[in-house]
Every structure is written in C-alpha cells, then in structure tokens.
C-alpha cells in the first residue's frame, strides 16, 4: 500500500513539473487573476491526487487535469456571480415555446429595442461576474441543448459526429443551437444588470 502511495507521489511530482505552467496559463487566461489562477491550479492537483484511483489512464493525464481545472474555473465563475443559481432546467418543449414567444404573430421581434448591456460587449468576456451569469444561463438550458452548443468546444468532433452522438439530424442540430442562443441572449438580458 505504501509503495503505491509513493508511486502516486512520484507521478504527481512529474505532473506538477510538466503541466503546471500550461494549467496556470490557461487559468490565468480564463480568470485574469494571478492569485486565483494559482489557487485553481493548486486545487486541481489536490483534487486529481484524491481521485487518482478514478483515473484509469483512459485519457491523457494532461486532458484529465485540464478537465478538472475547467470544472473548477466554472465553479469559480458561479461563486462570483451576483445572481443566485436557478435550480431549474427547462424542458425542450418549454425551450421551443419560450424562444417562439420572442416573436409576434407576424414573426417579427416583439421587443425591438436593443438592450444597452451589449454596448460594452467587448469587456463583458473579461468580467468574472458576467461569466458566472453566463454559466448559470447555460445550466438552465435543456440538457441536450447545452450538450449541442458546448460539444464543439469540448471535443474535436465535427458537426455530423456530434449529431450522431445526440441522435439528431444536422438540421435539428442547428435548430437547437439557434434556439439555445435565443434563450441565452434572453437570459443574459434578464439577469445581467
């Protein structure tokens, strides 16, 4: 038992030397705070160490560590968001209904005003509070929709492979992405004030 523990420690020492700069660069890019980024990297290694038994070498260590870090980054955004997390996830049916409702009987925008929150669009992405609101809005989407809009960033898969995984056609896929974006826009305009 002790031997295994020792071996794990050696593995982690190597990983820290090999991957900590990469993880740190990434966390810094995502959070724009040196201290936060350092803490997140440390947390990542600690979590990885504690769940090392669950890592069966199915993925590359680097990929595994980055996925842990990314979850920590999103948690960090959430904790910082001023709005409380909505604990509900809407159904697909409700999603279609809500996005249809943005348009009137002639299929013209009901609300034609352009929300002033977008005036500052370029700076929003660097704002941790905003990213927190964004993460929460993403969580309210139907599970399948969230998968549809995030999978192209999470994997190298092409659109048609993503569709296969989700069991939908390409035209379904962009419809879902489209509906999801309408709802995200609406959610951000409501919750980011």
């Amino acid at each position: 038992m002790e031997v295994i523990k020792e071996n794990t420690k050696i593995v982690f020492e190597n990983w820290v030397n090999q991957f900590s700069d990469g993880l740190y660069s990434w966390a810094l890019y995502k959070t724009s705070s040196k201290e936060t980024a350092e803490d997140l990297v440390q947390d990542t290694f600690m979590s990885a160490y504690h769940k090392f038994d669950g890592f069966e070498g199915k993925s590359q260590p680097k990929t595994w560590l980055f996925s842990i870090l990314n979850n920590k980054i999103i948690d960090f955004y959430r904790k910082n968001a001023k709005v409380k997390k909505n604990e509900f996830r809407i159904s697909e049916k409700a999603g279609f209904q809500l996005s249809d409702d943005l348009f009137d009987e002639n299929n013209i925008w009901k609300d034609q005003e352009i929300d002033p929150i977008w005036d500052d669009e370029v700076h929003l992405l660097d704002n941790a509070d905003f990213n927190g609101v964004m993460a929460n809005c993403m969580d309210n989407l139907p599970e399948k929709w969230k998968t549809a809009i995030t999978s192209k960033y999470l994997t190298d898969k092409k659109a048609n492979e993503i569709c296969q995984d989700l069991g939908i056609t390409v035209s379904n896929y962009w419809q879902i992405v489209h509906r999801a974006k309408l709802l995200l826009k609406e959610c951000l305009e409501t919750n980011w004030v």
Partner: protein
Amino acid sequence: MKKTLQIIMNKFINSCKKTTELIDKRGISKLSLIEKVQLQLHTSMCNTCHAYEHRSKFLDKAIGKLFNQKQPHDKAHLSEDRKSKILEELKN
C-alpha cells in the same frame, strides 16, 4: 407606417424569426445563395436582426470562453513558490 413596412418586408423577404434562424445556421452549415441574399437584405433593413447577428457571434465567444480548451493563449509560468507549495501539499 413602420409596422406596415416591417410586415411587408417580413412577408416578401424573410421574417425576423427566419432571419435569426439563418444567422445561427450560417455558423454551422452552408447557406444557399438565396438564403444569403435574403439574410443580407433583411439585416440591412432591420436593426434588431442586425444586432442579433452581433449577439450570435458574441455568444459563440462567450460559450467558447467557458468551455473551449483549445484556444491558443500566452504561455505564463507558475511561480516557483507555488510549485513548491503544491509539491509540499502533495507530500502530506
């Protein structure tokens, strides 16, 4: 007057609803030539849809910021202090 014009445009070119569909479709699959022309015509006359084009692009960036793992970024170095601290923690 404005409303009437909008209804006419929505009938003869494309509705706002259809236009926003095309805006998001464009990011995923190819638009036909007709779709491209319709999109261009509609957004040149409709401010709300024109703004939606920007929102759609922005949302891609925002989703990417949260989930993308591939975006290139500047190489930064974790301080030696912190590295030793992590190694120290692992020893306990």
